[in-house]
């Protein structure tokens, strides 16, 4: 079972979910390039200018580990990355679990993605011109908390710490992506975990995906926000167990 984190933090996003499957599965966790403990030198602006570049990495990991008929679990944008990877390597995954997925973030006629085009532009502008040096400035703040010794140095160093330039590009690629046309091509069983009150992937998006994907199952979680894997891991684990 391979877990992929989304835009923002790193594989620690799965710390409350992944262990629950270690009894039945060989659990694979990784950081996308630019996040967590990844090698920043491996970042190639051209390759990662589309989600397909990230999907290629995923396939590479799977091939290296000899994955066959695995379960792919992707949070947020990684749900779409996993979908693209399943096209590239059809034997690798037997099913997909998508947590808070969205094939298209921007509204269009007849489609509700949750964001206006100018809002996404505002986000990207915000990222490029604003105080997003926080991502590197963040780490020392987290590390400075001597009153929380349970936070190991490795952990405090890595999660939610992304290279600002790569994060900006990842945001651009993520929020401009459009994978609606790919949904119908998925034949393997897919579980869509839809949160209540998710500003990033609204309920309408989850319903749209369920409609477009014939072999899909939609579960609307009671959990609110965009990260049920952190805020409501039990609910996520239950839904996943039921599916796999």
């Amino acid at each position, binding site marked *: 079972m391979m877990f992929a984190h989304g835009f923002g*933090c790193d594989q620690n*996003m799965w710390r409350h979910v992944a262990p629950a499957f270690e009894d039945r599965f060989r659990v694979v966790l990784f950081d996308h390039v630019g996040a967590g403990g990844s090698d920043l030198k491996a970042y190639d602006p051209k390759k990662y200018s589309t989600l397909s570049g990230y999907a290629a990495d995923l396939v590479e990991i799977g091939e290296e580990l000899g994955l066959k008929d695995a379960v792919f679990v992707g949070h947020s944008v990684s749900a779409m990355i996993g979908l693209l990877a399943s096209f590239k390597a059809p034997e690798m995954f037997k099913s997909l679990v998508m947590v808070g997925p969205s094939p298209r973030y921007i509204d269009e006629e007849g489609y509700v993605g949750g964001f206006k085009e100018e809002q996404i532009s505002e986000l990207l502008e915000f990222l490029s011109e604003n*105080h997003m040096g926080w991502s590197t400035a963040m780490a020392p703040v987290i590390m400075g908390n001597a009153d*929380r010794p349970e936070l190991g140095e490795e952990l405090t160093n890595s999660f939610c710490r992304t290279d600002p330039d790569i994060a900006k590009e990842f945001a651009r690629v993520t929020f401009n992506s459009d994978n609606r046309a790919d949904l119908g091509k998925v034949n393997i069983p897919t579980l869509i975990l839809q949160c209540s009150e998710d500003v990033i992937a609204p309920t309408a998006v989850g319903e749209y995906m369920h409609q477009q994907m014939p072999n899909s199952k939609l579960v609307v979680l009671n959990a609110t926000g965009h*990260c049920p894997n952190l805020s409501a891991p039990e609910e996520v684990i239950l839904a996943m167990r039921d599916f796999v």
Partner: protein
Amino acid sequence: MSETDHIEEDLEDLYENAPCGYLSLRMDGRIAKANQTFCRWTGYTPEELLNKRLHDFLNIAGRIFYETHFAPLLRMQGFFNEVALDLLRKDGERFPVLVNAAERKDADGKPLFIRLTVFNATDRRRYERELLKARDELKEFAASLEERVAEATSAQLRSDAALATQREDAELREQFIAVLGHDLRNPLASISAGMRLLQKTKLDERGESFVLLMQKSVMRMAGLIDNVLDFARGRLGGGIMLTLSVQTLEPALQQVVDELQSTHPEQIIKTEFSFTKQVDADPVRIGQLLSNLLGNALTYGAPGEPVTVTAKTDKQFELAVCNKGNPIPEAAMKRLFFPFSRGEVRPSQQGLGLGLYIASEIAKAHGGTIDVTSTSELTCFTLRMPLLR
């Protein structure tokens, strides 16, 4: 503790009017309680804030980052500190804040609600923006600097390459001139040798006059070849090359005089040599210079009148060739030492017009000059150059 030190702190007032905003969020992100300071800063009443989500007071970028970064961070480590956000006030204005957050947990570690402390960061954010702007400007400057360095480097490389090409060209030119000189002089030497053999056989008067004419032509040809080659070298970059040595120049000059006398037996060449000092010069080149001047004098001078060659070493080395005859026209004087310039006399005798040019170049190479005076009485070309370099 004295009585004046004792402050009766009102905890309720401390909460409501603290110099920071307080927010309590339920685990679903909805506002459960807000203090007066927060309400004042944002322009909302506590009732308006109640049950709203924090998202509702953030701009879109803040919302996305709260969901993708800060909310997960809070869940993972139970707190976050110094998160920069823009709050949207009721009047639509943005209010920059720094936010600290901590989860309030029960005895079992189960999170109950979230406490947020909100600090006014207007000035700090302005300062940060200026810093960012300065950093971007610096980046831009560095980039333009890099660009300029790259440009300069490539220009340097180009000029290095051009220099190398130039050097190659110069080498090729030298080779070409050497080969040309060799190829032109060789057949001439054969003709000259053949004629010397011919002179030793018994010839009638007509035959002898033919040989003499031919010898004259050969000498003239040899002189022309030398001049053309020197011109090519001088013009195309090589310059006049000197092989300097310190000696009296008398033998070299005498040899030139003898050669020209033998080819111009009908004319009188008078020499007045007075060498008291040695000269640092290239004897072959000085000989070539004299040959050019004397050749001209013999060609253009009045027939039957003697040509005089005087050489002396006083303070400097002076070599003069004088002849009688028509003066050099005023117009021609100016262009006398330019290449391909000729006097307008006897067209049949025209050479290439390089003789005086080469002579002046040789003079220049020795640090000297050639002066010309031309009157109806006498035309003189005078070389003056330092004795020692």
